Each structure stands twice: as structure tokens, then as C-alpha cells.
């Protein structure tokens, strides 16, 4: 290994000579500076290379040819090497971004940059307490220089505050060092750690001072106002260095002194870190200035990493390897994402200081820029496949193992807030994109792009390291990447490619799909392929749609084939990610997507904790002996995903605002993933659910309420997609109810309902997509009379609503029959009555749907619209055929379902010939179909036989008392169709869920607002915070 001292010598020599070299020209001097930074990077790589594969041991280097107690020691171990690499990589990237300003500013800027990075490297390498101080000062002072280098006035303001905090911190550190020397007798950390004097009453205080100084440098809440101001105002390149490189170095410094800390001090570190994580995220949610927001996020992340490092030791969560994996993973994630985002924020332009003016001044990003921003933002919030995801999983798993539930709550809660505001920001960026504006990538996008690529690369690597190596689980990302590469290709080609990808996935996964999984594969994979096909209905490449749709579909497939909790959760979050981006693609998807992803993540977090708390395999087999309550978390998480009443608020927006075909995919296919997991979870852990009867009954009522209120909300909608969205919610409610029955009849019902819902909701969405495409509006009252011009779509909708409402003889009735039979059989009479009411209510919106769109008076402007495109009608035709077949021969559908369920439960329902028999009653689908057809045919012929001289009449030729109507707008009864119903029962649908969550959001927001009152902008107050923070910390450690 290269002696790192030479690197310091090089850097210093280069820095000293820079003013001279600068006389040769700025290019030469900057080139020298960059080369020096690169040399650090190369050396770091060589260290890593030497340390990892061969496992060459950690090496130490002394100065002046002496060893430890006399000389200063530098140590190169794995964490040091990685840290060095991070510092130099971030340094180079930022330098690239700052290049122009560096070229214009005095040479002092380049010197400061070089010295700052060298200082950070020194912080990482040194094992000497006082030397650590020197390097901290080098990097701080160089940073002060850098803050001012390009002469931003705001940066100067912030810099002064920074210096005040830094000054206090260095005074503390010096006091700590000297007393550590006094009581420990050593300046070398490793030797001091062995000295008993440091653990005495006085030595602990000395260690406390060291710790306090380091913590302050790590910008803990609430003593971090100065840091936020700096992040906000300085050159984003410098922000990247501070938030990435400097934080890495300081965290490693903290890690270094941890051996001399006692338990009380470690707890304080953990507590302070978590408090920072939580509070900064809360405040971050209030930010409208992107850089300030990123600043809060940085501070939060660093707090989390520090807390994790402390907790690892405090709770013995694992060995150093665990700390590297988790704290390191989180840090790496933060480092890459934040560096990329800060650098990217340059491209967004300079935000003004006022929140209002800011939005206008931000520029839209090119598609590539947006994509990179997406990768970085998504990585930052810990979605797969990025390192943060894996680290968070390991962390939660370990914390669950240590039974630290409160910590989990804090961490995940704050993570959710962070996801909220980071994705809100990303949504705003994505929303600014020009429609199909193929702007080239911005200048300076290379840095963020590299960060994004590294983030992905490390993410994949850490996933593999955690044992998620199943190629099928990674298939979504492969498909995403492959299709993004051909994103400029015409839509039909990409559709075919997506279908091919799904087919290939299905082929590969086929052997692993048992009955239940195969059943769901039809809906999930088949549905995905179908919607990929349908996506051709709009011309043009529809950029981004196919990759995401394909990824989402394959993620659904991956959920089916996952065989470990982590694999499953990975697939689940992949699905969340892909579907979030799909929603975001919608025209007005920004808000809806945000709600979708926040609730999606919230649900996923519940799932994660549940999974983490249950040791054991992830399979469709009963597992005994586990704690029961985690299953409640899993169910809760799934309920969020399924949009159960109360946590449904994301649902209408997400289903309504995404592209019309995507809505169908989300509602009919994707929602079944939750059903699948619910079934698997109940099958595996249903036996250990605490208070089983009560819990299931409650679950049933939740499902029921969802069904009822979904229907009630649906009837008041003017927007056809909203109607369908609420309807989906209601239908899923029935599935939940049926699952809660928890016997053979119930589950048969659930699966049957799920499949049916897939069929008819697909038909509806596809038909409505065609209608919307043709008429160009989503408001039903602006349509009317379309039966004449779009008869096929009408037929499709007609069959779908007959099926959905459960009117015999179509298969929807089978679902109703099964539902009531199983409910009554179970003795859930009241549930049955409410379900009956809900299904009657469903009738209302279904009729409204078909009436206001297809019947009534056509609008003149829509009299010439054509039938929907073939890309939509072909799938609809196929679905109609399936629906008819399934209706006439219920066994086609029910035999496989009952086969699957038969593995788990004793039979209640059975077939006698074509008659399905329950203990209470019977239903012969085939016979009732025949009777209906015959009766209908007879009536039809009766009608024809008596029809004399039929005369079609013109549009307004209707029976009116005195005048003839002439305006379809006044004659088509469509708007506020159920006004009397609203008058009678409108009070039920006052959006309580929305209001609750809004109030909740406002509450969180105002907590954030209250907390951020801390940040008064006065540097002196910040200094006061620093001192008070230290005092509080001191008192706390004393108390602990």
C-alpha cells in the first residue's frame, strides 16, 4: 500500500505551489489541483483493491519514522479506504461542477478546494486525537474559504454563522483533547482507548467534550441552523462536498472515537442522531427552496447514520461488518444521492430566497435530467434497488431482533416524511417537463449521472451481497433499463417488446408458480401484457410509459416468485416504485403520485416491520410458533396498499390521474398484488393472529366499510375515472371482506371476486380509455349518446356493469352468491346486509356510468367520433369472451380456485354437476344462463313479432308538453345525477378520510413549522443553540 503520507505531501506541495503554477495559466493550476484529488482517489482504489480480495490486513503508518505513542499514526483499513474514495470522488465531481467558477475566482478557491478535500482525507486517516483536530481545522478553514470563493453574498452571511459554530466546536474539541491526554495519558486513539484513566469520572467528561465537538460538526438538531444556511446558499458543488465528503469524514471520525465512549455517551449519540433525523425531516417538509430542503435532508441522513453507528455498538446489533453494511450503506446512499442532487440543483437555476418567486425561476429539466433526478430522489428515500433500501431493511431487521420498536417507529416515521418532501420536489421537477420536448441533456449533467449510475451499481451490489440473487427479482430493472434504451422507438415496437418480456418472464417463472401463484400470474402478468398491448392505442412513442409498465408488470411477477421475506419486500417496493412513476407520468399526476407513494411507502414500512419481526420463511404454508402481532402489521400494511377505508385517500387520485390505460393496469392488475400477499400472509400466519376471531371480524368490517364507502363515493363523481377509481376501492373491499371470512367458502369467494374484478374492471377501463381518447374529456356530463358512435365500447361497458353489479346470469352474480353464502354460513348476518346495501349502491354509479356516457342526448361535437382504436377493442373482445365463458360455465373459474383453497381449508362448497352447493343453498350457473337466454330470446321475438312499422326519429324528437328541446346540454340529464341521494345520504361521504389525513398532515406540518422556529436566521442564536445543545447533552449523559 502506498504510504498515505506521500499523498499528503503531494497535496500540500501542490497546494503550496499552486499560486506559482497559476502564473502559467489557470488551466495548469486547476489541472494540478484536480490531478491531486484524482491521485487520492486512485490511491483509495488501490487500498480497497489490496484490502478486500486478499484480505490484506489494516495497515498503519507513523510519521517521522516513529511509532504510536510518540508519532502520529495514520491507519488504512477498509472504512478508511472507502471513505477516502468517497471524499475524492465527491471532490472530483464537485470540482467538475465548480470548474467555471473556480476558473473565474482567485486561485484561493482552488487551493481551498484542494485543502478541504485533503483535510477530510486526513480526518479519515489519522488515529491521533490532536491531529484529528488539525485536519478538522484544515477542512473547516478551507471550507470557510470555499464558501466565500465565488463571492455570493448570501454565502458570506451563512459562512459567518458557520464559523461561529465551528469556533465553538473547536474550542470544545481542544478542551476534550487536552483532558483526554491528561487522564488517558495518550493522544493516540487506540492507545487511549486502552487507558483506564479515560473511563474514570473525569476522563468520561473529557471524552464527552471530544464527542460534543464532533457531534456539533455533524450538525445535530437543533444546533444546525448555520449548516442549513450554508447548504442553501453556497455553490451547490460545495454543498455536495459538505454533505457528502465532509459528512463521511466526520462520521468516520465519530466512528473512530466510539471505542472511548461509554454507553451513556453512545445513547446520547443515538438519541441525538435520531432526533436530528426526525426533526430535520419534519422541518424539511416545510421547505420550498430546493437547496435548503436538500440541506435538511442531508442533516437528517447524517443524523441517522450516526445513530445507526452508535446503536450498532450500544445494542450489539452486529459486528463491524454489520455497521459497514448498514451505516455504510446508508451513508453511501446519502452521499451519492445528495451529491448528485446538489449538483443537479445547479441545472435548476438559482432559487430565489422567497418561496413564491422560486418556482418560476426554476427551469425545467430535460428528460434525461429528469430521469437522473428521479434516480437520485428515489435512491435518497430508500426505494430499491439503491443501497439505502438494503441498508434500511437490514437495520429494521436488526432493530426488530433487538426489540427496539420505538426506534423503528421514529426511523420509519421520519423516513416517510423525508420521502414525502423529496418526492414532492421530484414530482414538481417532473411536472415541469415539456410535453415531448426532446431537449438535450443539460451541461454538467455528467456528475449527477455518474452519481446515479454509482447509486444503482452499489445498490445492485449490496442486494447481491444480501443474498438477493434471483435474476427474476431483478428482471423489472432489466426490463426498465432495456426499454429505456429504446425509448425513442415507436410505441408498437415497445409494446411488443414489453409483451415479449412478460412472456419470457412467465416462461422462466412458470416452474415456480404453484396453483395460487399461477392463478394470480394470470391477472398480474397477463394483465400487464394486456395493458402493454392496449398502450398502443395512443400514437407516438409515449416516452417512459412502456419501460415503467413493463417494470411494474415484472415486479408483480417477482412478487409471485419471491421466496424470502427480503426478496418479496424487494419486489414489493419495486412495484411501488414503478407504479409511482407511472402515476407521476400522468398529466396532472404530481399530487396524486405523491399521495400514492407516501401511502404506498407507509404501507410498505408496516409490512417491512411485520416481516422483520417474524422469523421464518415466506411461503404459502402455515408457520407456527411465531409471535402473532406482526401479522397485524402486515395486514395493516396491505390494507393501505389495498386502499381500505381510512387509508384510501391516495386511491382516487392515483387511479384517476394516471394515463387512462395505466389506471386500468393499476386498478385491475396491480391491486391484486395486495390480495395475493394478504392470502399468503393469512395462510402462513393466520393461525397465530392474536384474538383471531375478533381480528378477522374487524378486518371484515374494514373490508365492508371500504366496499360501502367506495360505492357511495363513486356515485357522486362527475369524472368518469374517479368513478371507476372509487368503484375499484369498493370492489377490493369485498375481497377483503371475503378473505376475512377465513374459510374455504370465503377464500373461494375472494379469489373469484378478485378474478372477476380483474375482468370487468379491465373492460371498463379499456372502454373508458377509448371514450376519453375520442371525446377528449373525463367529465361524464360532457358526454352522452355515444352508443350510436361507439357501440362496441357500449357493449363492453354493458357487460362489465352487469357483471360488476352482480346481476345474473353473468359471472358477477357468482361472486355475490358466493359472498352472501359464505357470510351467512359464517353467521355474519349484519355484514351480509351491509354488503347487500353496498352492492345496491354500486348499482347507482354503474347506471350513471353507462347512462351519462352512452345514452341520453349526444353532443353535436361528438356526433362524429369513431369507435375506440383496435388496441383497446381487441383486449375488450377477448375479455368479453372470457366473461361469457366464465358465466356460462362457472366451473371454468371456480375449479382452479377451489383447488387452490382446498389446500388450506376443509371444503364447505362443492360442485354437484354444474350446480354449486353450499350448506345453505345452491346455484346452477349454466342452467340459469340457459333460462335467461331462452326467456330473453322469447321476449325478443315477442317484441319483434309485434313491432309494427318502426320509425327511427331524430335526436330531439321526444315527448314534451309544449316545446321541443334543442340543446343536448339541457336535455341530457347527467350532472349531479343523484342529487336526491346526496341530499339524503350525502352526509356519509363528507371525505372524512381525506380530512383526517389532511389534519394529520397539517399536524405534522405544524410540528415541523414549530420546530423550524428554531431556525431564526440569527447566527448568534445558532451559536447559542450549539452551546445549549452541548449543555443538554452533558446533563443527559450525566443523567444516563
Amino acid at each position: 500500500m502506498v504510504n498515505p503520507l506521500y499523498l499528503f505531501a503531494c497535496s500540500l506541495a501542490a497546494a503550496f505551489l499552486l499560486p506559482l503554477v497559476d502564473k502559467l495559466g489557470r488551466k495548469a493550476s486547476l489541472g494540478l489541483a484536480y490531478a491531486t484529488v484524482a491521485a487520492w482517489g486512485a490511491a483509495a482504489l488501490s487500498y480497497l483493491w489490496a484490502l478486500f480480495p486478499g484480505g490484506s490486513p489494516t495497515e498503519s503508518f507513523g510519521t517521522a519514522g516513529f511509532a504510536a505513542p510518540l508519532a502520529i499514526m495514520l491507519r488504512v483499513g477498509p472504512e478508511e479506504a472507502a471513505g477516502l474514495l468517497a471524499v475524492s470522488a465527491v471532490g472530483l465531481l464537485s470540482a467538475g461542477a465548480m470548474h467555471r467558477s473556480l476558473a473565474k475566482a482567485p486561485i484561493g478557491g482552488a487551493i481551498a478546494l484542494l485543502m478541504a478535500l485533503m483535510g477530510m482525507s486526513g480526518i479519515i486517516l489519522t488515529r491521533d486525537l490532536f491531529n484529528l483536530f488539525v485536519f478538522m481545522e484544515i477542512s473547516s478553514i478551507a471550507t470557510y474559504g470555499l464558501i466565500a470563493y465565488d463571492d455570493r453574498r448570501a454565502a458570506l452571511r451563512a459562512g459567518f454563522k458557520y464559523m461561529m459554530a465551528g469556533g465553538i466546536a473547536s474550542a470544545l474539541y481542544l478542551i476534550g483533547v487536552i483532558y483526554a491526554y491528561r487522564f488517558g495519558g495518550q493522544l493516540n486513539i487506540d492507545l487511549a482507548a486502552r487507558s483506564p484513566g479515560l473511563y474514570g469520572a473525569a476522563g468520561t467528561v473529557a471524552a464527552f467534550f471530544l464527542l460534543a465537538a464532533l457531534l456539533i460538526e455533524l450538525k445535530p438538531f437543533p444546533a444546525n441552523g448555520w449548516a442549513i444556511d450554508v447548504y442553501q446558499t453556497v455553490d451547490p458543488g460545495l454543498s455536495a462536498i459538505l454533505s457528502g465528503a465532509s459528512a463521511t469524514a466526520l462520521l468516520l471520525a465519530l466512528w473512530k472515537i466510539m471505542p472511548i465512549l461509554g454507553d451513556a455517551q453512545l445513547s446520547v449519540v443515538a438519541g441525538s442522531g435520531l432526533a436530528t433525523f426526525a426533526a430535520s425531516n419534519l422541518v424539511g417538509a416545510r421547505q420550498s427552496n430546493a437547496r435548503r430542503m436538500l440541506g435538511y435532508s442531508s442533516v437528517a441522513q447524517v443524523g441517522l447514520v450516526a445513530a445507526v453507528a452508535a446503536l450498532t455498538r450500544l445494542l450489539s446489533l452486529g459486528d463491524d461488518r454489520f455497521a459497514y453494511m448498514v451505516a455504510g450503506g446508508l451513508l453511501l446512499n446519502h452521499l451519492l444521492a445528495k451529491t448528485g442532487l446538489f449538483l443537479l440543483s445547479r441545472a435548476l437555476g438559482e432559487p430565489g430566497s422567497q418561496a413564491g418567486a422560486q418556482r418560476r425561476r426554476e427551469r425545467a429539466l430535460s428528460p434525461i435530467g429528469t430521469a437522473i433526478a428521479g434516480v437520485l430522489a428515489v435512491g435518497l428515500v430508500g426505494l430499491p434497488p439503491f443501497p439505502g433500501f438494503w441498508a434500511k431493511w437490514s437495520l429494521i431487521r436488526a432493530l426488530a431482533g433487538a426489540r427496539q420498536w420505538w426506534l423503528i417507529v421514529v426511523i420509519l416515521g421520519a423516513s416517510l416524511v423525508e420521502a414525502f418532501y423529496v418526492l414532492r420536489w421530484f414530482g414538481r421537477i417532473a411536472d415541469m417537463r415539456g410535453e415531448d420536448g426532446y431537449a438535450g441533456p443539460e451541461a454538467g449533467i455528467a456528475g449527477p449521472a455518474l452519481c446515479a449510475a454509482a447509486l444503482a451499481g452499489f445498490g445492485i451490489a449490496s442486494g447481491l451481497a444480501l443474498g438477493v440473487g434471483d435474476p427474476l427479482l431483478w428482471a423489472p430493472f432489466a426490463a426498465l433499463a432495456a426499454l429505456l434504451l429504446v425509448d425513442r422507438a415507436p410505441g408498437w415496437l415497445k409494446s411488443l417488446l414489453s409483451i415479449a418480456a412478460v412472456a419470457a418472464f412467465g416462461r422462466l417463472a412458470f416452474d415456480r408458480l404453484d396453483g395460487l401463484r399461477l392463478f394470480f400470474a394470470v391477472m398480474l402478468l397477463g394483465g400487464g401484457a394486456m395493458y402493454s398491448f392496449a398502450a398502443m392505442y395512443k400514437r407516438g412513442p409515449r416516452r417512459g410509459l412502456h419501460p415503467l409498465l413493463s417494470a411494474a408488470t415484472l415486479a408483480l411477477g417477482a412478487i409471485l416468485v419471491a421466496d424470502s421475506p427480503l426478496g418479496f419486500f424487494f419486489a414489493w417496493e419495486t412495484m411501488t416504485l414503478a407504479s409511482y412513476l407511472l402515476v407521476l407520468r400522468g398529466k396532472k399526476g404530481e399530487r396524486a403520485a405523491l399521495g400514492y407513494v407516501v401511502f404506498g411507502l407507509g404501507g410498505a414500512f408496516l409490512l417491512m416491520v411485520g416481516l422483520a419481526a417474524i422469523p421464518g420463511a415466506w411461503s404459502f404454508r402455515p408457520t407456527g410458533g411465531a409471535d402473532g402481532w406482526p401479522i397485524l402489521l402486515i395486514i395493516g400494511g396491505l390494507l393501505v396498499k389495498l386502499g381500505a377505508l381510512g387509508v384510501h385517500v391516495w386511491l382516487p387520485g392515483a387511479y384517476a390521474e394516471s394515463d387512462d390505460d395505466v389506471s386500468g393496469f393499476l386498478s385491475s392488475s396491480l391491486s391484486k398484488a395486495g390480495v395475493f400477499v394478504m392470502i399468503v400472509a393469512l395462510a402462513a400466519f393466520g393461525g397465530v393472529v392474536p384474538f383471531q376471531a375478533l381480528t378477522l371480524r374487524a378486518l371484515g368490517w374494514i373490508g365492508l366499510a371500504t366496499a360501502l364507502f367506495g360505492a357511495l363515493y363513486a356515485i357522486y363523481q362527475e369524472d368518469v375515472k374517479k368513478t371507476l377509481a372509487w368503484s375499484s376501492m369498493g370492489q377490493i373491499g369485498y375481497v377483503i371482506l371475503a378473505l376475512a371470512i377465513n374459510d374455504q367458502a370465503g377464500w373461494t369467494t375472494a379469489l373469484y371476486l378478485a378474478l372477476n374484478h380483474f375482468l370487468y374492471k379491465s373492460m371498463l377501463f379499456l372502454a373508458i380509455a377509448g371514450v376519453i381518447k375520442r371525446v377528449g374529456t373525463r367529465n361524464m356530463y360532457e358526454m352522452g349518446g355515444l352508443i350510436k358512435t361507439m357501440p362496441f365500447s357500449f357493449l363492453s361497458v354493458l357487460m362489465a356493469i352487469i357483471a360488476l353489479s352482480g346481476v345474473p346470469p353473468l359471472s358477477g352474480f357468482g361472486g355475490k352468491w358466493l359472498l352472501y353464502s359464505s357470510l351467512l354460513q359464517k353467521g355474519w348476518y349484519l355484514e351480509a346486509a351491509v354488503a347487500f346495501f353496498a352492492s345496491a349502491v354500486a348499482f347507482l354509479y354503474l347506471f350513471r356510468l353507462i347512462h351519462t356516457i352512452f345514452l341520453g342526448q349526444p353532443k353535436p361535437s361528438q356526433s362524429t367520433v369513431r369507435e375506440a382504436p383496435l388496441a383497446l377493442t381487441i383486449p375488450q373482445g377477448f375479455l368479453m369472451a372470457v366473461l361469457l365463458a366464465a358465466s356460462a360455465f362457472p366451473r371454468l373459474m371456480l375449479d382452479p380456485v377451489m383447488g387452490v383453497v382446498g389446500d388450506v381449508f376443509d371444503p364447505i362448497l362443492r360442485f354437484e354437476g354444474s350446480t354449486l352447493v353450499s350448506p345453505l343453498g345452491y346455484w346452477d350457473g349454466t342452467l340459469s344462463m340457459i333460462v335467461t337466454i331462452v326467456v330473453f330470446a322469447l321476449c325478443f321475438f315477442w317484441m319483434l313479432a309485434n313491432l309494427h312499422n318502426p320509425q327511427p326519429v331524430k335526436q330531439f324528437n321526444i315527448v314534451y308538453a309544449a316545446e321541443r328541446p334543442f340543446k343536448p346540454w339541457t336535455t341530457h340529464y347527467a350532472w349531479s345525477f343523484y342529487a336526491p341521494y346526496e341530499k339524503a345520504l350525502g352526509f356519509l361521504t363528507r371525505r372524512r378520510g381525506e380530512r383526517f389525513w389532511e389534519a394529520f398532515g397539517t399536524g405534522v406540518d405544524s410540528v415541523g413549522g414549530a420546530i423550524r422556529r428554531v431556525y431564526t436566521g440569527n447566527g448568534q442564536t445558532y451559536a447559542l443553540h450549539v452551546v445549549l445543545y452541548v449543555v443538554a447533552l452533558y446533563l443527559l449523559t450525566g443523567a444516563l
Partner: protein
Amino acid sequence: MAIDIAIIVAGAFMVASGIGAIASKSLVVSILLSGGVSLAASVVFLLMGAPDVAMTEAAIGSGLTTVVFLYALARSRQADDEDSNERLEAPASRSGGSK
């Protein structure tokens, strides 16, 4: 013990001038008093058998620092006196390179 007493006297002087430096209304007085603190400190250092440090403190702490302070103060006072056309310039204008 004599040295201790001397140190205590110097310490008292330091604390007094320190408080004076902070409390004084006049910046120049503050600066000079803080120089005085450093000077007293260097005496203390000398008494403690640290002549190296004493020299450094005297030269840098009390000498150079004071000069730097005074210059900085003068510089900012100039800014006050000057016709402040420049202040109207937008602070973000980054025209000024070193060249």
C-alpha cells in the same frame, strides 16, 4: 507557590480585561484589551516554563492578532465612509475575478 500567586494575579488581570473587552462599547478598546489578555497569557506561559509558547502567544496572539483586528476595523470603517455606489450593486454580480 510564588509562581502560583503570580499566575493568579495574571489570571485575574486576564479575566478582568477579557470582561472589559467584551463589555466595552468601543471596538478599539475591545481589541486592545483582548491583546492585553493575550499578553498576560504569554506572561503566564513564561511563568509556567513554556517560553516557546510564551513567545508565540506574545507575537501572534497579542501582536499580530491585534494588528489584524485593527486593520480589519479600519477597512470596514472605510467602507462606511466611502461613497457607497458599490453597495447598490447587486451582491450576486460576480464580475470580479482576480484578473
